[in-house]
């Protein structure tokens, strides 16, 4: 179980052939669910995550509503088959913490004051997990929010950095996360305002700073992909008017 049991680099490249500061392949699709107001499917390496946004809509139970703004709810949920050993379905302490920090990663940019007494629900389902599910979930959720037409001050993009074999790396995959020395996920606006920052493992203050900088670079690259995916969907709508405007569930 020790970090020394596994060799993370071969000829300067990582187990999957990536360079230290390289992201895994990312695929983003917008508007993949017919019933949701906004949705997004994302693949980041081996992660497959789907996000749906409902709202602004009426709050149930009603006592949760706020007179001056919309509340935001975020539910991070892992499918039982998404991991090697079957996960017991339903919320556990980890998923509740992730739901909290993910909500707080998105809330700073959502213009909640536009929708008093309502709720914006964000549902994130992890279908397949391979380290970095919270970052994938936040990326998908941010795109789904935009797809739902929720007014936002900016996009949110999320990425993690890690440390293996005393090297700071971008976007750790499962092996690097499990046997590595540190994991540091962040989320931020394209301007570099950090809305999520977590860390566990061991880093010197200097390494911490380098990891933050690397993760921010990754998040910036992801931002471009999020924007491209949104532009792609909505430019198709312009080219083929009517096709996407009416949701047809068939």
């Amino acid at each position, binding site marked *: *179980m020790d970090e020394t049991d596994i060799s993370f680099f071969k000829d300067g490249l990582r187990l999957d052939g990536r360079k230290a500061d390289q992201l895994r392949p990312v695929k983003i699709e917008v508007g993949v669910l017919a019933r949701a107001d906004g949705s997004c499917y994302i693949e980041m390496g081996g992660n497959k995550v789907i996000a749906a946004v409902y709202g602004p809509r009426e709050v149930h139970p009603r006592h949760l509503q706020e007179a001056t703004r919309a509340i935001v709810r975020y539910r991070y949920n892992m499918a039982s088959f998404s991991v090697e050993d079957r996960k017991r379905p339903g919320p556990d*302490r*980890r998923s*509740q*913490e992730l*739901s*909290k*920090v993910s909500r*707080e990663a998105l*809330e*700073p940019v959502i213009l909640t004051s536009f929708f008093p007494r309502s709720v914006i629900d964000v549902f994130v389902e992890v279908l397949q997990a391979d380290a970095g599910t919270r970052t994938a979930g936040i990326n998908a959720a941010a795109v789904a929010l935009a797809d739902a037409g929720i007014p936002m001050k900016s996009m949110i993009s999320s990425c993690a950095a890690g440390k293996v074999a005393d090297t700071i790396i971008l976007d750790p995959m499962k092996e690097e996360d499990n046997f590595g020395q540190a994991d*540091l996920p962040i989320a*931020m*606006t394209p301007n*570099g*305002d*950090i*809305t*999520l*920052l*977590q*860390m*566990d*493992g*061991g*880093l*010197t*203050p200097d390494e*911490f*700073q380098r990891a*933050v*900088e690397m993760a*921010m670079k990754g998040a910036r690259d992801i931002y471009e992909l999020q924007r491209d995916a949104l532009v792609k969907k909505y430019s198709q709508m312009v080219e083929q008017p009517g096709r996407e405007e009416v949701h047809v569930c068939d």
Partner: protein
Amino acid sequence: MSVTNVISEIKKDFIYNLLLKGERIDGRTFDQYREISIQRDVIRKAEGSALVKLGSSQVLVGVKMQPGEPFQDTPNKGVIITNAELVPLASPSFEPGPPNEMGIELARLVDRGVRESKAVDLEALCIIPGKQVWIIFIDVHILDDCGNILDAASLGAIAALMSTKVPAARFGLGEDYILPIRDIPIATTAIEFNDVLMFDPGVDEEAIANTRLTIISTMNGNICGSQKSGTGMLKPEQVYRIIDIACEKAKEIREKFLEA
């Protein structure tokens, strides 16, 4: 911590105006902690315990140990289970019932400090590989929430662990012995408001700020955990500034209260 606490606009303005003058409501400097006191072994029935006072905030941490089964993927390691009770006697905004996400986050951050700093040698807690290991229950009881209960709880957890005696005799496993502790993780929390960073926020200061960053540092000055919380944003420079001060504060606290 108490995001649900409501304070009057007039008080909010008061705190804000003081802050513009570079002052805090209780006269502290921005990086100054309230008075800390740690009493160990306050609960004789527990294997280890500590009552931490951070200003008026009070947190009691109890450690219980018992033999049990290891996790399948770590057959040779002991188990740490951390729980936090935000009991309703501690604050008007706490309610009875199962832990809410605030309580869960608190427990998981306390756990993160102990676990990631490798303060407890889990392999030394193996009794029969794959069959029987020691299970450490760290239970955090918040008694009075006057702000920054997270730092107080983390401090209580490590102090309680440092006073823990493994109850081997009670389970017929030889003589009791002191639980060996290899590191002393310290959590330090700052809030950000209007580009001012305030350490060890009091309950009213927590109510005005919506961004909080906790840094957990170890004895060699490294960082073993961190968490941003709240619905605000932080600039990278603010993060680095908090880290600098946090590591220094942690060192002071550690030397003064735990290494004596």
